[in-house]
C-alpha cells in the first residue's frame, strides 16, 4: 500500500520522535507501516541511528576569548576615526557656499542645516552631547 508517500510517513515519524507535532496521525502511520516493508525496515534503521545520537554529546572547549576581545575593543575605542569629521567639514563648507550665493534667497529652514549636520554627527558617534559626566561632577 502506497496511498501515503513514504517520505511523508518517515518525516512524520521523525517529528513524533523529536517530540514535535507530526503531520500524520499515529493511525495513518501505523496503517502505512503495516503495508510498506521498506518503511518498516527504515524504522529499524532509524532506531539504531537514534540510539547512537542519544549517547553522543558535544565536545567542549575551554578557551578564554576575553583577553583578545578586550584588547580589540580597547584598540577600537582608542582609534578616533577622522573620516566623519572630514564629511562634516565638507558639508558645512558646501552649506556656507550655498548661503553666500547672491542669487539664492533660501528660507529660514536653511539655518537648521548646520544643526542637523551636528545632530547626525553625534548620532553617528553614539555620543550624547547633553550627558553629564558624573566622574567630573564627583571631582569637584
Amino acid at each position, binding site marked *: 500500500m502506497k496511498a501515503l508517500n513514504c517520505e511523508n510517513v518517515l518525516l512524520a515519524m*521523525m517529528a513524533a520522535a523529536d517530540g*514535535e507535532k507530526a503531520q500524520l496521525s499515529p493511525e495513518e502511520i501505523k496503517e502505512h507501516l503495516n503495508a510498506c516493508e521498506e518503511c518498516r525496515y527504515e524504522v529499524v534503521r532509524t532506531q539504531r541511528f537514534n540510539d547512537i545520537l542519544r549517547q553522543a*554529546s*558535544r565536545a567542549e*572547549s575551554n578557551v578564554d*576569548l576575553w583577553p583578545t*576581545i578586550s584588547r580589540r575593543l580597547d584598540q577600537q575605542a582608542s582609534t578616533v576615526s577622522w573620516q566623519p569629521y572630514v564629511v562634516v567639514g565638507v558639508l558645512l563648507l558646501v552649506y556656507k557656499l550655498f548661503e553666500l550665493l547672491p542669487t539664492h534667497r533660501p528660507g529660514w529652514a536653511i539655518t537648521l542645516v548646520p544643526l542637523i549636520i551636528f545632530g547626525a554627527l553625534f548620532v553617528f558617534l553614539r555620543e550624547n552631547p547633553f550627558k553629564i559626566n558624573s566622574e567630573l561632577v564627583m571631582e569637584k
Partner: protein
Amino acid sequence: MSALMDDGTAIEKCRNGEHEAFRHLVERYQRQAMTHASAILGNREDAQDAAQEAFIDAFRALNSFDTSRSFYPWFYVLLRNRCYKMAARKRETESIDETVIVATDSPMQSEEVRALENALLSLEREDREIVTLKYFDGLSYDELAERLQIPKGTVMSRLFHARRKLQAKLER
C-alpha cells in the same frame, strides 16, 4: 565586578560605554559559541577566530539588540554569519586525532565516537549544523527556525535529509 550580572544589565552597561561589562557576556557564552562554531567549521582554530569576530560584531551591534529577547539566539545569527563567511574563504581542514564535535567522554565506544565525528565532518556544513543543534543541544523545530532564520517546514525537511545523509555515512 559582580559575578551575578544578568545579560540585560551587562548590555545596558555596554551601551553606556563600559566595555568591561561585555566580559560577562563573553564568559557566559564563549563555551557555547566555541562548540557551535567548531561544529560548523570543523576545527577549533577557525572556530576561535569566528567566535571572537562574532563577539566583536555583537558588541558593535548591541544598540540594535532588543533586550526583551534572549542574547544567545540573537548572537548565534552573528556567529553563524561569521562562520559561513570564514568557511567560504578556507578549505576544510584535515582530520586530526582530537575530536572537535563529539565528546570523547560520552558513553559511546571510542571507535563509535570517531565514526560519528568523521561522518559529521563529511557532511555539508549546513547539514552538520542542523543535526548537532537538534541532537546535541536539543533545540525544538521552532528554536531551530529562529536560529537558522528559515521556516519551520524547511527545518523539518532539511533535518530529515541531513539525518539520512549522516545515517548513510555511518552505515558505510
